[in-house]
């Protein structure tokens, strides 16, 4: 198996995992927050936020990457700000790949969490309130555990999307081996050369293997969570 992939390909596999996990982890909290706002909020800009969250899904990934470049690039307003203030640089870094993946997976994450929030019986939150729990506590002690299945599902989607994302990534942070060349980029490269099918297939199988592992892990976790709720 080790021989099966070149060292560079192994690097791409590792990088992909790193990027996907980072993207997933980094988007969970904002995802929960946005889902809450969209599902429970009653303010004017709700619809706008809703549309914004969906944009990465609606637009071709290349366009998303392009916008990311405009916004988060070295000379982009946000990118420049982050660089100056916090020394955070996205351009041509794996962090940029993670950002692109996080954004591409965000609508999926948010939607899954929203569905779970919708299913929460608000009477339980009321009950917690009567027992003296501040709404923030209620959220952490009641709502959050109840929406765990949705969060998990969202994370699975986000991770899977990140494993497959490449349009936005390559447009935003290019395809630098060891830095931003994720599995999909590597696969893509293979598809661009005549006779690259074998290589593409090889990496595709690796990608599938990783995802199968992730899926099984997530299903296992989901089953545990569900069992906690049901029995």
């Amino acid at each position, binding site marked *: 198996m080790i021989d099966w992939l070149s060292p560079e390909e192994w690097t791409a596999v590792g990088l992909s995992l790193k990027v996907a996990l980072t993207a997933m982890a980094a988007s969970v909290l904002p995802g929960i927050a946005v889902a809450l706002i969209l599902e429970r909020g009653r303010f004017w800009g709700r619809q706008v936020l809703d549309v914004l969250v969906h944009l990465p899904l609606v637009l071709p990934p290349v366009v998303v990457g392009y916008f990311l470049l405009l916004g988060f690039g070295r000379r982009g307003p946000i990118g420049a700000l982050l660089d100056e203030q916090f020394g955070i640089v996205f351009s041509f870094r794996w962090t940029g790949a993670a950002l692109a993946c996080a954004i591409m997976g965000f609508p999926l994450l948010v939607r899954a969490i929203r569905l779970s929030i919708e299913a929460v019986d608000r009477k339980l939150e009321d009950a917690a309130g*009567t027992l*003296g729990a501040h709404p923030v506590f209620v959220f952490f002690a009641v709502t959050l555990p109840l929406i765990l299945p949705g969060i998990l599902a969202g994370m699975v989607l986000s991770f899977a999307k990140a494993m497959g994302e490449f349009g936005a990534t390559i447009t935003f942070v290019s395809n630098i081996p060891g830095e931003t060349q994720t599995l999909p980029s590597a696969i893509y490269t293979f598809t661009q050369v005549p006779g690259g099918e074998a290589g593409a297939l090889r990496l595709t199988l690796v990608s599938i293997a990783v995802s199968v592992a992730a899926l099984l892990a997530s299903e296992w976790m989901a089953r545990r969570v569900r069992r906690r709720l049901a*029995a």
Partner: protein
Amino acid sequence: MSLDVDIRHGQGDFTLHAAFRSEGRLTALFGPSGSGKTTLVNAIGGLIRPSEGRIEVNGRVLVDTRRGIFVPKHRRRIGYVFQEGRLFPHLSVRQNLLFGRWFTPRDQRKASFDAVVDLLGIGHLLTRRPATLSGGEKQRVAIGRALLADPQLLLMDEPLASLDEARKAEIYPYLERLRDEGGVPIVLVSHSVAEIARLATSIVVLSEGRVRASGPAAEILMHGNLLPQPDRGEAGALVETRVAGHDEVYDLTYLEAKGGILTVPRLPLPMGAHLRLRLRARDIILSLHAPEGLSALNALPAIVVAIDEPDGAGVDVALDCAGDALVARLTRKSVETLGLAPGLPVHAIIKSIAFDQEALARMPPADEL
């Protein structure tokens, strides 16, 4: 202790317009299904925001729409036993029970976990999840959860509806103690007059969103006509008594009322303990003579005070029993046959065994009755 409510709230076609003041430690809400009891309790608990009005508990204003006051539910320090349980499905029974503890300052934690768990008989369920509990078990956990929050106002919406008599018999004394010693006002919704008679110090009768009657329990229960028709048979007097002695041979306890000594099955109470006795109007037989050769042990001399308007075949006869007001429900025929009239001396006969569990209630402090 006081509960002062004057609110208006609409939901769909239904409008609750409830205004009453209760000085009682335990205010019972009584009324047919759909009359607005839960809505009222929700308003007191802060789960709904009445469109208009005021709610004051023990001098603390919880809601005053005119002054824009609305204390959010988590600041009301209430314990609410919901009509439908509402246990947290993701928490174990123990975690459910202890949920309110987080928000009770340590020095205000009075309810003992072990005592409550024991009382409710849920010790063997502590590690289980609500989904695996039976209906009654859920309800008991819900009661425990509310009690263990050490609330300053206890709201109970038909908390004992699906419990068996044995369990109720164990819970009643606890609620009585809470009522009398805990200093916690309790609002109890119940469809059982017996339960209300045992526990309530004040009663609010609701019907179609309006308060039909409200006042001290003794007063409301005395007059059957304040209750809905089928419950009238449950009306009766609440009589204050003291434990005057025990009969160890026959397992009896003697209670001293103003009008004389009443004999009841042995009670686990010390001499001198105060007890409130419910004497249901329909359980009292009147005799013109002192009874002889009768199995009933209790016969109190009394004077007929008034004879109510008849209500079908029955009629309420008000009695004065040396200061204790009693009421007996007789047939009109008996009233005529016996020639009962105000001023006539009679004997009120009550079977000792008839004082059922529910009728023997610990008495709340006298100022409340």
